[in-house]
């Protein structure tokens, strides 16, 4: 039995057998909540390899697209620095720094370029949140 199947099975036991047998409202609610948590952990474990691979591919594509967009015309230095940082670390911290740099330099970018860059970043964010909601919802 895989870890995600194990968690799912424990969650089912909590929900089906343990929770209903508890008389007091508060501990019964806690048992049902524990079942929900275990179920979500299980689903997260099951999806993790595919989600990790998809997230890495999305991030690679984002960096390629942003570098290409910046190569066409030099951006404000803060944006170039943020994109370079994202290229190195490819993580959420660098992505946040890039988004902040885009907004902070909005005036320096023309509106169409600001929208284009932010839209490209948002495409990656949308794909990421769709994967996370698959586990969380």
């Amino acid at each position, binding site marked *: 039995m895989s870890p995600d199947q194990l968690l799912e099975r424990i969650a089912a036991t909590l929900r089906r057998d343990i929770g209903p047998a508890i008389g007091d409202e508060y501990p019964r609610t*806690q048992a049902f*909540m524990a079942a929900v948590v275990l179920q979500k952990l299980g689903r997260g474990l099951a999806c993790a390899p595919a989600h990790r691979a998809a997230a890495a591919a999305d991030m690679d594509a984002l960096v390629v697209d942003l570098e290409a967009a910046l190569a066409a015309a030099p951006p404000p230095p803060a944006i170039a620095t943020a994109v370079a940082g994202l290229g190195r670390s490819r993580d959420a911290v660098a992505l946040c720094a890039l988004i902040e740099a885009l907004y902070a330099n*909005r005036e320096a970018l023309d509106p169409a370029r600001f929208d284009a860059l932010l839209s490209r970043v948002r495409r990656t964010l949308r794909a990421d949140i769709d994967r996370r909601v698959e586990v969380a919802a």
Partner: protein
Amino acid sequence: MTGPMSRKLEARIVDYIARRLPDGRDFQLQDVQRIAVGWSHETWLFDLVWQEGGMARRRGLCLRRDPGNTLLRHLSSLEQQFRVLQCLADTALPTPRPYWFEHDPAILDMPFLVMEKVPGVCPSPWGREGRAFYQAAAGRGALPASFTATLASLHTLDWRVAGLDFLGVPAPGTDFARREIAKWRALIDLSGHPPEPILTDLISWLEANAPPVERLTLVHGAYRTGNLLIHDDRISAVLDWELQVLGDPMYDVAYVLSDLNREGTPLLSNLVDRDDFYRDYEAATGFTIDDAVCRYYNALYAMRSVAFWMSASGLYAAGQSDDIRLARTAWSVPVVLERAARELGY
């Protein structure tokens, strides 16, 4: 603490009240009931019965204790709640009359306030029974009208005369929205949650698009069914004074209009017809509902929700609470972030 009130706590409450009502004797608590809902303070309802001047007396009371690990952390203050209720006691707005507030944990282990138990019911709009209750009330018409009239009363009361300026008066312009953003950002920072790019996008957008405020009013911050006590098809008390601010009345209006607060029905807050709300609110207040500003505040509510859930799951992660409901909210964060992305158009 869960379950029934312990004898020891009951005795300490009686002892406290006896000192506050020195002309009474033979104090007893009857019909003690703990309100099980909510993520915040511990709330008890009971009837106090006693003898005074040769007569039997009875008064319904509500006691709220602050365990110090509420979802709103430093933003939740029973003392402020008490002051707000004092200020509102002599206004047209129906609120519970506050009696006592104590900060000293030696009395009942934690800060607490005692206020009037107002007659009425407060069905949860999320359950089947609650939805049926509001559906039936919507058909009769009186409660929806009372819902809107009470909000109008809240927004048109003179907060300076009521002494509510201690809540903080935003400067003209965009200060109100910026204060709210800063408040929820502080709660997010305290949660210890890892960075979230969608949240960064949302906050940056909110800061870049903060609307100027046309007028300042008292704002409840969570005006919806579930936070309103109902008696005889009327709002008998506005409850949950934890998120109130002085600010843009559209902040409350946006909350009323939000589909967050209704389930399986087009009725606002499961109760009020949208067109009726626009017509009656605008007639009662003289304000025009600004849909664009309400959309902005909806995005701000998305940020606030993220802050709530990050704070809640952070409390569990940090060992400050053992309530597994808080652990479960870790999965509410991406759900609200997804909603925020949609608010921003992606």
